[in-house]
């Protein structure tokens, strides 16, 4: 049961960084230094995640949390080190991800399920609709008319429909109303009860303590603290 699900071994990520802000040929011609420089986003990240364990990731804005999540989903390739993953990973849950603003709620459900390679039968669609709590009239509207809370409900409901071993959750609880927040926490607990792993990014240490057993604290792309959720959260509070 205690099998390692995910292991990071000295993972570093560098981004090519436009030194002079080169986004146009004009900028390129007027920049005297070399246009491309590399910036280290993640530096020597090492941790393991066992099956059924949940990991919290804490850190300031810009400390590399989202990049770390992207390396898990293999969207970003590490420049050094190795990411070993022995399970399937659900797509990152983050705000408004992949929703096509011109399409209706129903069309978006269909599109995203196809992109996530999930079954698109009536039952799975119905469970998404039920979880989102959005009514038929709303779902027939173009998504661009939704409020940010409604967008969050829709995109999270679709992402939760994935059947995977690891769920990556990036700041879910920031936008939804209280009802949806408790619904999400309920869902997370259900998933944990099923033996799934959760990787949870949040700026609320209380939530991290409630959901995760382990946590890491990132600062400037490095893990500065690694331990039980309670310890790491205490360190995180000291940062500010």
């Amino acid at each position, binding site marked *: 049961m205690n099998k390692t699900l995910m292991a990071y071994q000295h993972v570093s990520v560098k981004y*090519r960084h436009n030194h002079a802000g*080169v986004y146009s040929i004009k900028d390129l011609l007027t920049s005297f230094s070399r246009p491309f420089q590399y910036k280290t986003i993640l530096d020597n990240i090492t941790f393991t995640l066992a099956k059924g364990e949940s990991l919290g990731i804490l850190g300031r804005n810009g400390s590399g949390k989202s990049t770390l999540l992207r390396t898990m*989903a293999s969207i970003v390739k590490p420049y050094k080190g190795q990411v070993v993953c022995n399970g399937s990973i659900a797509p990152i849950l983050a705000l*408004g991800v992949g929703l096509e603003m011109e*399409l209706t709620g129903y069309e978006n459900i269909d599109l995203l399920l196809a992109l996530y*390679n999930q079954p698109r039968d009536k039952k799975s669609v119905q469970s998404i609709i039920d979880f989102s709590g959005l009514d038929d009239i709303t779902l027939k509207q173009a998504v661009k008319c939704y409020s940010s809370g409604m967008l969050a409900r829709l995109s999270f409901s679709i992402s939760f429909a994935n059947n995977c071993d690891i769920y990556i959750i990036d700041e879910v609880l920031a936008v939804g109303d209280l009802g949806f927040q408790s619904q999400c926490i309920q869902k997370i607990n259900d998933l944990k009860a099923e033996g799934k792993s959760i990787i949870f990014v949040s700026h609320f240490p209380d939530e991290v303590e409630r959901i995760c057993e382990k946590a890491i604290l990132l600062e400037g792309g490095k893990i500065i603290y690694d331990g039980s959720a309670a310890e790491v959260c205490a360190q995180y509070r000291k940062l500010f």
Partner: protein
Amino acid sequence: MQHLNQLYALSKRNIIVRYKHSLIGFFWGFFKPLLYLLIFIVIFSSQFSSISNQVLYITSGILFWFFFSNCTSQGAQSIVQSAGLIKSIYIPTIFFPLAEVIGELFNILLALMVYFIIMNWFGMIYSLTLFWVIPILFLFALFSFSITLILSALNVFYRDIGILWNTIQPALFYLTPIAYTESLIPQKFSFVIKANPIYYFIKLFRYPLYESKVPDFFLFGKCILITIVSCSVAIFLFNKMKNQFITAI
């Protein structure tokens, strides 16, 4: 197999989104060529009376020009516009320009069906040689895809590329013998036309559509060669750049 699903979903999205909230939907796809056709007929008919069956001559070029133009100009933005998806789901980035070309292919097939009916009035002969359009279109779609691929990748790093491409397109259009015949170009400038790869494809399309002949195999070979070269260059360049997309979009 799962990737095919993703590609299908993206292409479908492109088609739906393009004509969403428009009154006449995909009919716009052949209003644009039709308008250009009218302009050419009205303005140039006395100049170019040397062309027999002018309507058929122009249509057989203009339809495919707009296919190319739509693919490349929309495709150039495809990766930049899908930033949200690329940052959150693992989808091979090559699918975004590819889905644009597939969506456009769907549009041109619809347009072709309508034009096949209309063009019968203008003297198009129905025969089995018309089926040559299918392999030529396939080849031309691959060529368009390779250009789209390069543009979409470069556009991630330099947004000028998309704008630049839209600026030079009209020039490219008039450098392609669509509304006029090659013979109109003075001999000493003919190299300008011959340097334009689209010229060869348009010429090839005219064999079955305009002249009702089996395509010249030498020309066909040339087009295959152009496609192979452009595709290899495009895929090479795209693979070099694709890992850096995430940092620039």
